[in-house]
């Protein structure tokens, strides 16, 4: 497995956010992490990228321990994250937002090639190239942060709620881009989503979290038909 997290526990300020979650992502796989708000999905991503230190457990990426590395070194190791809530750099242009995504890279030509690829994939970004990112619509900003993450040429892409607050029509566009990125760029994807139908449709495997623990796991196709997923969101017994 490319990424393997074992028995992760995270507490924030006395709050148990994650209690013993284990998950893995294989090379070339798209794995969905679904569950209602507050289930601990984001915390798992933060633990993988080093923004939050797990209280216990182990995270390995291509054999190396991640849970002792600084966030900037984790990026260099090939993991890029699209944080929740479209965290663009609002007063920077689209261009600068994309270029900062390649901050950890030193291959200038390679960066230019990636930039071409990203702009090809998201033509809207090309139209808004020198506009301040904060003035764009939510959907455009979401494309930008995905593009920004791709600029790092990651081997593993972590996406936190890309459909959040995006109009339903655009959600489909974003879902299609995720599929295409996984397929064309040979990037493994760990997708955190509340929109479980979308996430299950575009992923190979999925974990469903509830109150900080894995409640369901399995092939996405099967979970899509599983009524327990709905109950996970809207209440009722599993």
């Amino acid at each position, binding site marked *: 497995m490319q990424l393997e997290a074992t028995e992760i526990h995270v507490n924030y300020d006395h709050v148990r956010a994650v209690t013993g979650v284990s998950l893995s992502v294989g090379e070339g796989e798209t794995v969905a992490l679904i569950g209602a708000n507050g289930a601990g999905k984001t915390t798992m991503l933060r633990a993988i990228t080093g923004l939050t230190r797990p209280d216990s457990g182990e995270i390995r990426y291509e054999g190396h321990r991640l849970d002792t590395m600084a966030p900037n070194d984790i990026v260099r190791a090939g993991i890029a994250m699209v944080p929740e809530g479209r965290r663009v750099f609002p007063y920077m242009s689209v261009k600068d937002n994309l270029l900062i995504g390649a901050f950890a890279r030193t291959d200038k030509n390679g960066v230019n090639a990636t930039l071409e690829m990203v702009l090809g994939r998201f033509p809207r970004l090309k139209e808004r190239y020198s506009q301040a990112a904060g003035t764009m619509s939510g959907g455009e900003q979401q494309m930008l942060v995905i593009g920004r993450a791709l600029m790092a040429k990651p081997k593993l892409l972590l996406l936190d709620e890309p459909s959040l607050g995006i109009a339903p029509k655009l*959600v489909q566009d974003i879902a299609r881009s995720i599929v295409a990125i996984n397929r064309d760029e040979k990037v493994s994807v760990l997708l955190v989503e509340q929109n479980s139908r979308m996430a299950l449709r575009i992923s190979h495997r999925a974990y469903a979290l509830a109150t900080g623990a894995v409640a369901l796991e399995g092939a996405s196709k099967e979970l899509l038909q599983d009524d327990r997923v709905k109950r996970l969101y*809207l*209440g009722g017994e599993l």
Partner: protein
Amino acid sequence: MSILEVRQLTKRFGGLAAVNEVSFNVEAGEILSIIGPNGAGKSTLFKLISSFLRATSGEVIYEGENIVSKAPHIVARKGVVRTFQETTIFKEMTALDNVVIAHHLRSRASLAGFYWASRTAKEDEAQFRESAEEILNYLGIGHVGNEIARNLPHGYLRALGMAIGLAAQPKLLLFDEPFAGMNHEETQQAVKQVYGIRDRGLTVLLVEHDMPAVMKISDRIVVLNFGQKIAEGTPTEIQDNEQVIEAYLGREDEEIGL
């Protein structure tokens, strides 16, 4: 009878409507939950009702009086009190002192009276302490009254937040995600506490995303998505509402495959 009427309440940030013409009523003595997917505008709505944000337009009628955009302490004086998520307590005070100070609205003595420790002030203090102890015991955390609040475990902090809210003697108590980050047993406990609060004669409005808890506890539910009210009804009605399911799980008809 409606204790609270929210009418066409709107809040815009820049051009974006975080809450868009939302209207609903809260009946006296009920437990009403506001739910919605992440980013739906729940917490903005919550802050508008408790007056921690100024509304762009619309009204919040409490007992026949429009309280929209009044200072939070004035709204609290009228009987609409909010709680916060668990980290918002007076961290460097003991749990008991947190609740004692929260009796502020019940003071009969003036500030000068408190300074000179007048008889009324002494009576107030004694009464506040007694009442604070009663509230802490009622919520089952009386035994940690003398702990510094920042050292308390999470479940206790949540109860402490409720205790602070209760001490202000509200008629309408607004809960901000009372079950977030709790495990199953803690949630059960907290649900009981909320029932208990209703049984004390209060009306409860809560914003929450723990669905099992919301379904269990609520008399009625209001569902928001993209800042608009998309449904209102009993838990069973909400669970079967296709629009609600879509808001949470996404649309069924999309065709995106691998």
